[in-house]
């Protein structure tokens, strides 16, 4: 499986942690090799171009910002990226 970089950016608020847990769960279901980084450095988040937390990004592309996507949506995004590779 190709390596892709899945990231969740958040300030540590409850919604941010919920997103991280959800993305981790979905990623593990797709492949146990996929890893999700949880980044709490807000500066990194702004550098990516987002202004509302939490952010879900794959390979430095923002998938969602400021919302909590459903598992289905997360799964689609990861699989689409994997298919692109």
């Amino acid at each position: 499986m190709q390596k892709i970089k899945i990231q969740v950016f958040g300030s540590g608020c409850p919604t941010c942690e919920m997103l991280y847990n959800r993305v981790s769960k979905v990623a593990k279901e797709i492949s146990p090799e996929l890893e999700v980084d949880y980044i709490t450095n807000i500066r990194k988040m702004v550098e990516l171009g987002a202004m509302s937390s939490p952010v879900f990004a794959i390979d430095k592309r923002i998938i969602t910002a400021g919302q909590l996507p459903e598992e289905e949506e997360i799964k689609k995004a990861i699989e689409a990226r994997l298919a692109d590779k």
Partner: protein
Amino acid sequence: MDIFYPFEWLADYITFVVFHLQADTRLAEACHFFIYDSLKILVLILLITHLMSLLRYYLPVEKLRDFLKSRNFYGLDYFLATIFGAVTPFCSCSSIPLFIGFVEAGIPLGVTFAFLIASPLINEVALALFIGMFGLKITALYVGAGIAIGIVGGFIIEHLHLERFVEDFVWQVKSQPRQIERKKASWKEVVRNVSREALGITKKIVWYVLAGVGIGALIHGYVPQGFFAAYLQKAGWWGVPLAVILAVPLYSNASGVIPIMQSLVEKGVPLGTALALMMAIVGVSLPEALILKKVIKWPLLTIFFGIVTLGIILIGYLFNVIL
């Protein structure tokens, strides 16, 4: 005909037919008030949160920021920033990225603060509650006052040249051009997204609102007419600042307090004092202040809060005089 007539009918039916309550008793009045107002407010909240979520779906804050930095607005940017702040939901976990994002884009500090002041002050839940409890005219006054405080506050902060009180690292952030995966979403997906956000917001506050309407209903039914007027006349001119100071720690329960206030106004609390109290509850919060401390230093933070608090007190006096 009143568009809320069906709720009136339902409240009548439950109060007088289902519960067999005697008309004109205190209990019947409180019960009727609770059913009618809860229904009306919940419907308004659902409606307005959906509208605002839809607006945000097409105009996320990143786009608003890009628009603000796109050209020189010759002062109109303060006004635009407060409007944008009003449609952006305020979550304290987003205030830091918002602040850095604005400053990094080269948007003046004053305009950034105009946004930060208006964002919590004018929000969809407060709007729905105001329309439901106080009607459109008072809601318009509330929104106008919020925008005025945002514009004037931002303008003052800009002209005090306080850039040195922004933490150094904020000026060094450089964002890459935004790359957003935006696949074409179908209508169904848009509706689902919007609805999910709106329902999420509603779910978070529904118990506070119901508790607030419940307490409001008891006041409505059991507290005699003009009860508070006597006390507050004794409080005299310091009624407004006192209300504002009392309000600051109440932040988290804003959605519960607005329905209570409506009943208090009905029983003699001056409207300006009540508005000041509600604005302070919604717009000024200590947790938020402490979060912003990560990006700005004490003097700027103090000036920011001072201006907003003073603005709210002045608005309270103004409304007490003109209403």
